[in-house]
């Protein structure tokens, strides 16, 4: 969602916490080459920090035993990796076929107006970020949005109001 051309420093050193360290060690045994661990390690880092800083990318490279450039390449190719912080609530609205037919635009417009955000932006207080994404695999209950990974189906403005009221 963000500018994917550069990394931002968090100013903090990065290492996996013990649970993630254990998960890394569990997974690495499952692959015959270490590079296969780049994506899983990026996920672990992002789950821990919420986004991927320069430090996290460097750490993943070192843990996997590869170049930071290679890790960075994957972090830019795959759009779910965040190269800058997202909001405390990250709202993804599906914009493709079935949701389009079921008026996803109303959802986008309402959220944009209510949060004062255009898709791709993060609110100044860091509470919300809005993103338009491709098919979320819930087309039979369109339009759908995903908030911090959780699906909300058959959305309409009424349901959005309730949903937003519950986020603080």
């Amino acid at each position, binding site marked *: 969602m963000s500018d994917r051309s550069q990394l931002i420093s968090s100013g903090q050193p990065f290492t996996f916490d013990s649970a993630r360290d254990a998960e890394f060690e569990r997974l690495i045994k499952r692959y015959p080459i270490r590079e296969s661990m780049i994506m899983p390690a990026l996920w672990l880092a992002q789950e821990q920090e919420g986004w991927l800083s320069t430090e996290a990318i460097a750490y993943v490279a070192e843990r996997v035993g590869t170049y930071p450039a*290679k890790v960075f390449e994957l972090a830019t190719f795959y*759009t779910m990796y965040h190269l800058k912080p997202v909001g405390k609530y990250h709202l993804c609205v599906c914009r*493709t076929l079935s949701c389009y037919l*079921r008026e996803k635009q109303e959802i986008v417009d309402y959220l944009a107006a209510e949060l004062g955000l255009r898709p791709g932006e993060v609110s100044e207080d860091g509470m919300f970020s809005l993103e338009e994404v*491709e*098919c979320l*695999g819930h*087309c*039979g209950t369109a339009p759908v949005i995903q908030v911090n*990974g959780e699906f909300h189906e058959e959305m309409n403005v009424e349901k959005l109001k309730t949903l937003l009221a519950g986020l603080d």
Partner: protein
Amino acid sequence: MEVKILSAKFDIEDSHRLEVAKKHGAYGTLEKLFAMDPADVIEEVKNSGLRGRGGAGFPAGVKWGFLPKDLDKPIYLAVNSDESEPATFKDRYILVRDPHMMIEGIIICCYAIGSHDSYIYIRGEYTSQLKILQEAIDEAYEAGYLGEQVAGHDFRLDVTVHRGAGAYVCGEETALLESIEGKKGQPRSKPPFPAVVGLYDCPTIINNVQSIASLPFIIEKGAEAYRAYGTEKSAGTHLFGISGHVEKPGMYELPLGLPLMEVLNEVAGGVWKGRQLKGVIPGGSSTPVLTPEEAHTVTLDYESMAEHKTMFGSGGIVVLDETVDIVKLVENLIAFYHHESCGQCTPCREGLGWMLKIIRKFIAGDGREDDIELLLELCDNIEMKTVCVLSAACTMPVRSYLEKFRHEFESYINSSNSDPVQSQAE
């Protein structure tokens, strides 16, 4: 019309948990399986007529037969759970409602092809689904259905979930392999095919979640029982996802071969709000659209779809009512494929971008008559001239809209011509 083969446990509470799934027969085929010769398992699957449910419809048993014999290399199974084609939402039900059916299917497939390492590639957006799946795998390990000795037999099997991160192209089988190898998801040129040179340069079978989940039934009840559903060339049942402008959108398991309109009207409640039908997309956004006349003659199987110059695809049926603006719909489609292009082929990377610019010209009221021809020409110049068929997944449907709904594109031209004041104002 609905049947319950794959979806037999879907309505049972907590059916994703081993204890519950076992009560309803999960892992019941393993004794029979291990008493069979792997070659006979392949033969049984061939005889069942099971075709790949990921979109291309390639016979599953035949694909397994392409593995080189006696090669001194490991063989891998990759289960395709990327499910990212717009309007496709069937595999998800298997992942969350009956993951043990899929794990049992993986055991069957791996035993048949001689694989000891399987990867399930799941799309990154499926977060809660991933959790349920991983818990099911953990339970299967604990219960001894996975690991060093599958169900007490001298057969090791490890199953690992590899999580994608938002790239539709990773559903393409070779991009999926690249992604597991820790690279960008850029498809490989074929040949060599993955059955010969696949994951980590080793022979690899890639199958869709639903294909794999269909195996326990086939092994338990036999090829003939599976063939009792569907048609001669399109055997079995399929999880159809019906979405768009219908009264009752949703996922329905049906035998193949039913008339499309009967399914739409009787199962999905017909076109919503009493409106007229404008068209039907039969199998995900990449399949050419059917006009209402065509929709009335087509049946839900691979042959009938081909006869109607479209494709069965992923079973994601989308209903378009009379209010749909085809030009804007096409813009939405092209935008998706353009966004998801992996960028390695010029015709796809640049061509889909040009198509998007031209369609946006129409919408802005600046379209010209020869732009329709230009779009068609672009489709010809892009299609089949690229490493993978993602580009064709865009051009094939776009061509169908241009041919079948040409008047809608023309009306965008005419309206801008007939209203010079408005076009000057822009």
